[in-house]
């Protein structure tokens, strides 16, 4: 009785060991995948940071797109507190 119980437990230990190894290997792959994605994300953030650098945006808006801040007389202020006549 006891002997068979020991045998069963022994087999379970072996099986669980194996399973844990497999799961750990999976964890490793997933982790390296996460690392790769993190790396890519970090690089994309940096790239975005470089492209959206204010100095660059400003220069492009001014030179290439010929944009400028409108003069005071061309800005209309909407006053929500004043009723329409």
């Amino acid at each position, binding site marked *: 009785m006891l002997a068979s119980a020991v045998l069963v437990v022994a087999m379970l230990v072996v099986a669980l060991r194996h399973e844990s190894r497999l799961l750990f290997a999976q964890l*490793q792959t997933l982790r390296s995948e996460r690392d790769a994605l*993190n790396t890519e994300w*970090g690089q994309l953030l*940096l790239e*975005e940071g470089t492209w959206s650098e204010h100095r660059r945006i400003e220069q492009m808006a001014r030179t290439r797109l010929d944009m400028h801040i409108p003069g*005071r007389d061309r800005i209309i*202020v*909407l006053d*929500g507190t004043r009723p*329409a006549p």
Partner: protein
Amino acid sequence: MTSRRTSGTVRRRANVVLGALYIGLALLAARAAYLQVVSADYLQIQGQARHTRVVKDNSHRGMVLDRNGVPLAISTPVDSVWAHPPTTLQEQKYIPALARLLEMTPRELSQTLKRSSDREFVYLKRHVPPNLATHVMALKAPGVALLREYRRYYPAGPVAGHVVGFTNVDDLGQEGLELAYDAWLRAIPGTKRVLKDLQGNAVEVVESIRLPVAGRDLVTSLDRRVQYLAYRELKSAVQKSGARAGSAVVLDVQTGEVLALVNEPDFNPNNRANLRSDTFRDRAVTDLYEPGSTLKPFTVAMALESGKYATDTLIDTTPGTFQVGGKTIRDTHNYGVLSVAHVIEKSSNVGASKIALSLPRERLWSMLRRVGFAESTGSRLPGEVAGLLNPPSTWVPIEQATISYGYGVSVTLLQLARAYAVLANGGELPPINLLRQDQVPERTRVMAPGIAHKIRRMLELAVGTDGTGTAAKVPDYRVAGKTGTVHKLTPSGYSADEYVAWFAGFAPMEHPRLAMVVLIDHPSGDRYFGGQVAAPVFSQVMAGALRLLDVAPDAPRPATTVVAAKEAKDVR
């Protein structure tokens, strides 16, 4: 007979052999039991030591973000090349090729390895580019491996260099917020066990012994857009005026959050190999300056508080000079008889001195202490200094007079900005914070709302047509502020031709949102007044910041450009 004897002999022999076998078996069993039970632990450790190794498992440092989630500092993984010196030294033939890849001479490499030949780990080169890492691994040199580390990048570069600070090669904060909040940002490395092959190379990770903990992200109070505006305008002002240095800070007057903090000269935290350390200094918190005329509003606040003065009380400043204890206090012109409000508008030193001297000196001291001078702002920025203000018991009359117009007292830029926030928010001292606040923090009342309000009106006059700070005006908004031009204190006394130009102010007038202080240190041209070099920076940055933060204009506008909400649809 013979056969029987023979058969008896055979049996006896068989028994001997069997007995020997049993003894052998018993010995084997005993040995097995000894190995399995008695010395199992020892053997397991020894076995693992021969085919596994424990290595460091790094994780990334938290990001530094601006208040809208835009990154100001990011960690990206890079690899560092390391070696197990005894293993690598066994195979000399790989060394020249390895040295070439790592940009070392073979001699240097061997020496590095030999020096640490009794150790398990030595860095060969840190933070290598990914393609170089691939090449190194392709070499398959024994005992050479990569370690995942993290390098810090600063997308905003020099724009936020001083305030964000930087880390060293070990990912530890060295300056700025990186240092102040290092414990929060820092990752805790874990350890993992790896299997190694015959050459000692790690081939497989078998278990994590301790999981690494990644650093936490830090959401700062900075606004990258406002920060950029302040950076751009300060840089151009410093260049245009040929100044030695400059600083500017923008505060939210309600919460005490720092929206922008910039210094000149600047530095690029991504590339600091050839930089001198004095460019790292965050002058806005580490350097002390005399505030000059920007301090006058607090002298006047003290006067109003005493009840002896009102906004329209008249003070005779004729003839533009005033003798105190053998020293002469001067105004730039003879302003004649001025009201208290005009003392601020014209920035009269004589007027401020006469007010200060007519009242007990403890009053002025108490006012200056209450609005936060001579104490740390609590920003937690490294190297922040408290400033200097002598106790009133040591003041002589001339000192009492000069302090009233900002000489003989030293402040940081951040302190002055906080003091102006008190005037702007109706008399409450906000705690300075570099982290985003989701609600208005608890503030201490240090000045009656009515007095703060009166000073605000006077400061609006000071940027008005007849004031000294007209260049600080912002289209469509009513702003308030005060200029200051200070003779620089040098080891040999006050310099005759070196100045510090100040502007401190806030906007919009009706419901102030932002306070800003600009300092230009030693403008070298013939334009050196605060109203000439510092006030324009305020105007430009404020105009942009108020627009970016969607603050409604409060200045009267030409009638045709204001329409009510319902009508707006038709206009478009």
